[in-house]
């Protein structure tokens, strides 16, 4: 029996993000191992019910004596590495989210452990993971060796399966000192509460024909009608100044695999397709019936997005 750790990510209001459940499922594998949930600056009691449903047997609250972990990712990683040593955890899983991949990479560097990020599959018995190379162009299998391995999993890539148990809440005080060499000074919130692209189940994206930043409103309206959907942009739309860089989907932007991807006015350039082709269902809306994207989508709607998208928003609303 091995001790396996799962770094549990919480949302701003201290709830367990539901994307953690797929990670716990992957860490559980075929069973037989002790699964530790590792919480940095989180409340074990608040998180216990959610994570034990998926098989976390021990839930560890990590804190530091005399240091504030929340404003220093370097300290968080040091504390996490110490907790892993203390509990003899030799495999660590976590979300390959913006926050997760940062902490996992810091921890791997401290422990000098092999690390694979953005994995979409895990085979514990064979010590292999699967992930993409060249965004969605090729699919890679990677074998990990070493005494300790760390693996970040793409949000929503692995389906969560319940495996209930009773979690024991524990606490661990790390002996880490703040070197004072780095500090998070401020959090700049985005202009509006956007759903993060890499964590969204549904994404609607605008290409260059969207024409302006203001016109993204039709996509935001549709995203709202779709539920918890994120809005993205093609590289052409970003480079034309219609959307900020962090909304770009593609091989040079964010690589996504939601269950539903709706591309509006996107022709289907190779680098864009590489960033979204692993979506479960792809819908294309484009005025040009010869756009390359129609050859590689599940549903195609030939029409002007300024007519089709508002009609879709309306259809979704009246269906609900």
């Amino acid at each position, binding site marked *: 029996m091995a001790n396996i750790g799962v770094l549990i990510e919480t949302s701003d209001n201290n709830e367990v993000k539901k994307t953690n459940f797929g990670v716990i499922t992957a860490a559980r594998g075929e069973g037989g191992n002790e699964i530790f949930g590792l919480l940095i600056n989180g409340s074990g009691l608040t998180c216990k019910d959610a994570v034990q449903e998926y098989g976390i047997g021990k839930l560890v609250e990590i804190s530091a004596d005399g240091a504030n972990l929340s404003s220093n990712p*370097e300290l968080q990683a040091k504390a996490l590495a110490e907790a892993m040593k203390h509990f003899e955890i030799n495999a660590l899983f976590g979300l390959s989210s*913006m*926050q997760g*991949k940062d902490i996992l*990479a810091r921890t*791997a*560097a*401290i422990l*000098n452990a*092999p*690390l694979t*990020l*953005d994995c979409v599959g895990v085979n514990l018995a064979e010590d292999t993971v699967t*992930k*993409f*190379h*060249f*965004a969605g*162009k*090729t699919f*890679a*299998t*990677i*074998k990990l*060796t070493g005494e300790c391995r760390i693996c970040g999993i793409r949000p929503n890539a692995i389906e969560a399966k319940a495996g209930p148990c009773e979690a024991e809440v524990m606490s661990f005080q790390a002996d880490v000192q703040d070197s*004072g060499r*780095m500090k998070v*000074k401020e959090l*700049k919130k985005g202009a*509006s*509460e956007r*759903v*993060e692209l890499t*964590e969204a189940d549904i994404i609607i994206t605008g290409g260059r024909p969207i024409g302006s930043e203001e016109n993204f409103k039709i996509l935001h309206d549709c995203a709202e009608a779709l539920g918890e959907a994120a809005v993205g942009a093609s590289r052409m739309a970003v480079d034309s100044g219609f959307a*900020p*860089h*962090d909304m770009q989907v593609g*091989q*040079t932007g964010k690589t996504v695999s939601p269950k*539903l991807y709706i591309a509006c006015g996107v022709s289907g350039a*190779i*680098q864009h397709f*590489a960033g979204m*082709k*692993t979506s479960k269902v*792809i*819908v294309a809306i484009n005025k040009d019936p010869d756009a390359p994207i129609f050859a*590689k989508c*599940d*549903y*195609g*709607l030939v*029409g002007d997005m300024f*007519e*089709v998208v508002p009609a*879709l928003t*309306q*259809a*979704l609303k009246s*269906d609900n």
Partner: protein
Amino acid sequence: MQIYVCIKHVPDTAVNINVVGECGFDESVKFVMNPYDEYAVEEAIQIRKKAGGEVIIVSVGKEAATKTIRSALAVGADRGILVKTDTQFLDSSLTAQALTKVIEQDGSPDMIFTGKQSVDSEGMQIPYRLAAAFDMPVVSDVAALSMGDGNVTVEREIGSGSREVIEMTLPCVVGAIKGLNEPRYANMVGIMKAKKKKLDQIDIADLGLDINAAGTKLTELKPFPERGKGKILQGSPQEMAEELTQLLKNEAKVL
């Protein structure tokens, strides 16, 4: 300021990748500088312009990577070092060790820049491993940077349009993303000058690293299956929208 910029020579994102053998691909396609690394190079050049010093480009790759190093020299970097390997997909930890060794042998970095990740193997960890090796603070996914007196303030993208403002002391490591700056293009003068700039090459075997000690090994690379032509809906925008809603609910079951 002695600024090192670690870059990678990768296939252009506009090309298709054709898998060859168990874990190779047809490398006769066009290669370019890893797109995120362009922002790293530009930022280093801008800092040197104000603070003085030297920008040194370091890369681990095949001999063909000299072309990408020259392209960085053409936009203003001072000199380059290539660590030669025979694989495009070297284990990230080994790559970081190789970069560390040559930088250590070459000088003493005040700053090290990289792109946040390569667009081929997408390891996403080189800046962190370099920082650990040099015992420096590190921030990746950096979209804004301003130099202070002995420190640097960066903005790190954390998703949903939000950013963390982080201050760290020099020396430090920075992982760049798109938006950090507008990379300049090389002009003819720059390209001519670059041909005469120093570009050292060293074989990875001569760095004393154990190549077989890699913690990760690519064992299979295969094309991701393409989907075929989908269902093309007909009718007015309203009719298509209504049909799509029903298909997404009842056929695809994603709503």
